[in-house]
């Protein structure tokens, strides 16, 4: 504490100090700005970019600075001293170094909990089991992805930050940096079509057009850090994470032991990346997916034929009903009750489509029956309303016609009176 001559000058000095602190804060001047930032921000191109990127990162917000990864002396006044090997400066880290550096903090539970009590610390462990991790850490193959390949080197953000490279709507393009490169992928025996296929899928439509962040992207099926292709036995479990009922019914079906003969569950009918919205045509007798394995002499063909008939019949009825309801609504009838029931019927129809995964026409008929009852009731309601419309309009024709004749007679009366 400085020795102030009197109370008044003590107050004055304190006021000046507070003012300086406030102004410094307002101008964004950090007292602890490192020499790395000071020098690199004055440089051009790739040497200054890391500073700009880091300044917007989660690391900057938590005071994790350049030296924490690159080493060196951030308080040194010149480059030589700052980049001193004796102070641990490593320059640009290589792939293995990157993984180890990130793991230093991110695999350290007590360190990470200081920043986020819910933070995971198993990323490094998972990474080591992934194809990426095995290639980098065991085979020392630098072509595979490290932490920085996906999260960015300096512009690391929280995964749910919309600007993050691993945000659901960005993650596919992040994977595409390598997996969309056919030349690179050919070196690993991967086709390189996966990203394009995914972008044509029903999942991509949900993600990009409907902005449904729960729609699966690459990491939802392949894992985040433990990235690996799901094996034949686990495909059904992967899809079943979201499509619970389909998996349950599939497990009760004659196809439940597919994996034993090397067939890949859901993928055999729906494909893997280019999954299209399912249609009833998948069960049709001329181009149905069952024909990939079964021919017309097998009982399975009959089952497929029966299921197709049930589903298309139900769909046609549902469409007819919707048209009737809309027609009555357009003619001014209040159809809110029918619309609500139509929603129930649609749900029952979707349930029927799900029921096909048991591959039993009897079971499907049983489920579809509920939807058919709904549809029949709505049709009855819509017919009643449409008949009411006809009754109203017919009454008007009589009333309007009668009054129109009266109107003409009045006109004639006026004319005769004024003659």
């Amino acid at each position, binding site marked *: 504490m400085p020795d102030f001559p009197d109370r008044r000058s003590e107050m004055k000095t304190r006021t000046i100090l507070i003012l300086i602190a406030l102004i410094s804060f307002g101008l964004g001047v950090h007292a602890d700005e490192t020499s790395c930032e000071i020098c690199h921000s004055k440089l051009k191109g790739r040497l200054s970019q890391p500073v700009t990127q880091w300044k917007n990162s989660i690391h900057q917000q938590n005071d994790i600075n350049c030296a924490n990864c690159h080493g060196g002396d951030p308080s040194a006044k010149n480059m030589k001293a700052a980049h001193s090997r004796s102070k641990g400066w490593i320059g640009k880290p290589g792939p293995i170094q990157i993984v180890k550096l990130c793991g230093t903090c991110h695999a350290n539970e007590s360190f990470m909990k200081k920043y986020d009590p819910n933070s995971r610390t198993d990323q490094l462990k998972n990474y080591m089991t992934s194809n990426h991790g095995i290639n980098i850490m065991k085979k020392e193959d630098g072509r595979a992805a490290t932490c920085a390949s996906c999260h960015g080197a300096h512009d690391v953000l929280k995964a749910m930050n919309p600007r993050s490279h691993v945000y659901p709507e960005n993650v596919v393009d992040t994977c595409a940096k390598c997996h969309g490169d056919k030349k690179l992928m050919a070196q690993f025996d991967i086709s390189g079509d996966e990203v394009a296929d995914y972008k044509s899928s029903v999942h991509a439509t949900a993600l990009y057009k409907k902005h449904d962040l729960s729609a699966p992207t690459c990491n939802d099926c392949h894992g985040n850090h433990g990235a690996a292709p799901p094996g034949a036995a686990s495909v059904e479990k992967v899809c079943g994470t979201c499509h619970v009922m389909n998996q349950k019914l599939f497990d009760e079906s004659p196809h439940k032991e597919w994996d034993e003969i090397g067939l890949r569950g859901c993928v055999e009918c729906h494909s893997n990346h280019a999954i299209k919205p399912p249609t009833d045509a998948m069960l049709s007798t001329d181009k149905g997916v069952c024909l990939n394995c079964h021919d017309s002499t097998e009982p399975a063909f009959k089952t497929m034929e029966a299921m197709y008939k049930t589903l298309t019949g139900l769909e046609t009825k549902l469409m007819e009903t919707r048209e009737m309801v809309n027609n009555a609504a357009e003619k001014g*009838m*209040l159809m809110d009750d029918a619309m609500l029931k139509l929603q129930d019927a649609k749900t029952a129809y979707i349930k029927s489509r799900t029921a096909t995964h048991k591959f039993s026409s009897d079971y499907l008929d049983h489920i579809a029956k509920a939807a058919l009852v709904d549809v029949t009731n709505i049709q009855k309601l819509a017919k009643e309303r449409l008949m009411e419309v006809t009754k*109203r309009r017919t009454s008007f024709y009589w009333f309007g016609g009668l009054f129109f004749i009266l109107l003409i007679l009045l006109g004639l009366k006026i004319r005769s009176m004024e003659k």
Partner: protein
Amino acid sequence: MLKKINAWVEERLDLSTLRHLTLEKTVPKHRYTPLHLFGGVALFFFTVQIVTGILLLLYYKPTAGEAFKSVEFIVTQVPYGWLIRSIHSWSANLMILAIFIHMFAKYFLKAYRKPRELTWVSGFILLVLAMGFGFTGYLLPWNELAFFATGVGTESVAATPVIGHWLLLILRGGENVTGATLSRFFAIHVTVLPLVIIGILSIHLLLIQAQGMSKPIGIKEKGEIPFVPNFMLRDLMMWLGALIVLVGLATFFPWELGHAVDTFASAPAGIKPEWYFLSMYQTLKWMPPFFIGISGELIGITLISIAGALVLLVPFLDRKASREEKSPWFTIIGVLAIIFLIAITIYARFS
């Protein structure tokens, strides 16, 4: 028998005015005579409003929890309820249309000139009251569209200097559109406005009876026709035509009920007021947020008020017409006003 009843009444009441109306009153006959019939059409729709309004009152419940359900009950369960409700809504719109046609017809015929200034003034007040009926009645079904449109409509009142916020509170019965707003709109719609409109309408009709129908300046007359039965039968013809159109519209295009209010839902896209408020709505929409420090909404409301005041004062502004001289400038202004109103309404409806 009729004679006896007549004599009995005559002994107790002086029926000379009525006798004058039925036996002696005449209407000038010229090529614009049919234009005089639109006032009668507006009166016919007003009568329909009273009758259907009373019928709706038998089932309508003016509370936030019951209003929508009660209207739904009327249109689905009550015998001919759908027709009554649809006629009430269509007739409200046709009444305002008829008033507009009637007003512009009288404007172009310069029927407002001396000595009929008060007839014009009372007619203008009737138009404002009819619009008030439309505004308050629109909220009563308590559907989504009405709820949010009333929110926007009442909000503009707040732009009035000094008393704006106070007026808003009075109109809404609180800061927001709630069940309290519904209660007071209902009260205004079924008690205050009918009482006022019947009073003003009586003055309007009395003035017409006292002064007779105006003759346009410089128009060649083809004589006169008796009010009863010749003009009355013409009125009846128009009413029959109006009734056919009204019931036809109500049958083929029943008035929509919409969806029940969900106060937590966000406002649906494209909320617009009824067609007769669209010109005002668009004017307010075109205003900048601020102009030389004054709120755009206030400027808009001031402009609309000035336009209304000018229409109200037309008989006192058109000095030439009061001297029985032609006033072409007023005719040109009227034509421009019609073109502007139609154009802005169409633009607001489809933009």
